[in-house]
């Protein structure tokens, strides 16, 4: 069984985001870029499935600029067997990404797609659901535990929902999206970085996959959230009530 994992290159989680002066988007020039943390978790899960003998190959896919190859190299150094880079300039929206993934499924024929529940840059939380919809596969989103049954070709997915856990049973092939608590991703060790050097990254263009890059969305303006004002210390309960009433208008 082959597992396909989508990995996105995003502004590093620890970097303080700055909006471009012309408000057209977020500054990415000279900013540290890394693999989306949820994608790291997805890849880790795929590797564990393979190590448990339940999968034969883990293929990492990334879409976007030429530098996505760095993100794929990280994936290969973590242990993915192969990489696929779909080179595209310009913004990629969830529906386009989902269409590219669907096209790749036709080429690669995986039985399982694992991806992050969302990317930390646009926070869309749509791609996994859209791929499942386009492919007509069942989906287990926000997985906090995944169990595979090879005999029955089933995936049992635990998801954290309000007030408890929900357990789903999916027929393979399926799409799983990962939540934060699913696992703790491994580090890229030197021996694995060395091995990754000889692993293959195959390049596609969207045209080769017959996907047209377009979007019905247009970003009009990106702005920073309003700065939080410093708190004030009130001197009495009366003053507090007065402020809540007349300034905050909450009571």
């Amino acid at each position, binding site marked *: 069984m082959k597992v396909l994992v989508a990995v996105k290159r995003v502004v*590093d*989680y*620890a*970097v*303080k985001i700055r909006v471009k002066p012309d408000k057209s988007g977020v500054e990415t020039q*000279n*900013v*540290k870029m*890394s*693999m989306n*943390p949820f994608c790291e978790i997805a890849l880790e899960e795929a590797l564990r499935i393979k190590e448990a003998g339940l999968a034969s190959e883990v293929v990492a896919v990334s879409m976007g600029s030429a530098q996505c190859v*760095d993100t794929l190299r*990280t994936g290969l*150094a*973590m242990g993915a067997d192969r990489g696929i880079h779909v080179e595209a300039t310009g913004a990629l929206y969830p529906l386009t990404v989902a269409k590219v993934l669907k096209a790749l499924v036709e080429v690669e024929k995986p039985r399982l797609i694992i991806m992050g529940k969302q990317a930390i840059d646009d926070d869309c939380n749509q791609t996994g659901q859209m791929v499942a919809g386009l492919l007509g596969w069942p989906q287990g989103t926000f997985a906090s535990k995944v169990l595979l049954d090879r005999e029955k070709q089933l995936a049992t997915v635990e998801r954290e929902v309000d007030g408890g856990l929900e357990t789903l049973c999916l027929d393979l092939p399926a799409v799983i999206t990962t939540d934060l608590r699913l696992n*703790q991703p491994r*580090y*890229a*060790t*030197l*021996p694995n*970085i*060395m091995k990754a050097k000889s692993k293959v990254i195959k390049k596609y263009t969207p045209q080769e996959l017959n996907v047209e890059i377009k979007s019905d969305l247009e970003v009009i303006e990106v702005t920073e959230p309003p700065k939080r004002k410093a708190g004030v210390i009130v001197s009495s309960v009366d003053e507090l009530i007065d402020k809540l009433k007349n300034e905050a208008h909450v009571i």
Partner: protein
Amino acid sequence: MMEKCRATRRLFSHSFKSLFNHRSVSDHSTLRSASVFTHHFSDNGQRCIPLFQLQKSDLLARASFSRDYKQTFWPPLGRGLGGMMCALQFRSFGSAGTKIQRNPSFATLNSDDVTYFKGVLGEKNVVQDEDRLEFVNADWMHKYKGSSRLLLLPTTTDQVSQILKYCNSRHLAVVPQGGNTGLVGGSVPVFDEVIISMSSMNNIVDFDKVSGMLVCEAGCILENLISFLDNQGFIMPLDLGAKGSCQIGGNVSTNAGGLRLIRHGSLHGNVLGLEAVLANGNVLDMLGTLRKDNTGYDLKHLFIGSEGSLGIVTKVSILTPPKLSSVNIAFIACKDYLSCQRLLLEAKRKLGEILSAFEFWDSEAMDLVLNHLEGVRNPLPPSVHNFYVLIETTSSDESYDKEKLEAFLLRSMESGLISDGVLAQDINQASSFWRIREGIPEALMRAGPIYKYDLSLPVENMYNLVEEMRVRLAQKAKVVGYGHLGDGNLHLNISAPQYDDMILAQVEPYVYEWTSKHRGSISAEHGLGLMKANEIFYSKSHETVQVMASIKKLLDPNGILNPYKVLPHSLSTH
């Protein structure tokens, strides 16, 4: 989220009281000064009778300065005094045989003094609150404790000047205090010195985006400066595990080295100017911002590393390098010390212009961190390694830098210098590697009593000392070695089940003699403080120390600035 290592003492405050209870040592002079204070400042209305007249000779005869906190010494006395023990303060010394008496030429604080200070600083910046005093009287390791009854918090240079002028005329001894993270007992009073804390002088005065020149007040916390500069696209030329608490004034006064010295050099190079207040209240404005200035003696260097013994640093101008976009960090395991050493040589040669840190620690240090710090995990696959190395590179070109480091590491792995390693793939991973290295002092602190030595040694035989100490101490204590290998700086730490004279006798003066024999320094970066004031001759000649004493005498004739520290007691008492 980037987990920052903060050396705040809040973490340890729960164990604060218990730590002191069994670690107190005392001598007649502490008792004497404390009792006098109680007389004047007893908050709870109890009048304590000054004890020294009736007890002095008795105490003198029995005073023992060893640090096993003789139970036989205190309890009888305590019982005899009943409630009057209320204000007794205890303290312990870092070095064996430290016999130290309160300098009788110093005055003791009276209520007129307090009134004067309130006049200069305002009520709220003159602190006599017991709890707050307890905190500033004790050092980060909870090893040294003074019995000061007064904390002053000046907010301007002029106030510092007025305070010092007054103290000088009254012969009141003072201790300048920054973030109080110093590791040699320099930042806390020995007896009843007035504590002058710089924490309220924490403004950034000026930042020049073209030259990268930062001018700020001495009380700015290092980490705040780092974040301020980060927003401007610059970095501080120094970084250390205590960044969350230590202040730039403290860094300058200890000439702190830290984690990036290998790249940016020492503060003697990066500090371009200072403002300092002398004991007599004179303000020395040496706050230049020029890279080159050869007019006469460069006096600012006297204040860099003099640990508050020559003046109080009030402002600093410091050259800050631009922040480069690409930082890569590798966490490496080596089988033996020789491999670490050879790896360093190779790294200097092959990574030269991009190398920004080269740190090492042994498996004992690693175990401590994994056992005592929450949320820390070993990034390497489980396996026993004897040594760990952290290599950081910084440059302006992400892919070039990473490729270069990767190629270097892979070559070193092939040649057997590296047994295993991981390369951080994002900032989060990078900070988790740093957390391990920077967490070592904290882990040691949590493990129990420590004897700390901070030595400069030739790299090739640096670790032999650690091994010799292990043999000398056998099972009695854990010997841990780590440090800034790239700078030839070993932190030798002996983690003991309790403070114990037998252990200390095995360690001192052996460590100092060994260091001296190998032409090393007994203080690479922490300073001498109280702990090593008398040991200065292991690293400096008599002639040199004499000149130091003359300079001290010239700038601080009454010796009120941080007494009992830095210079040998034989030279500094009057």
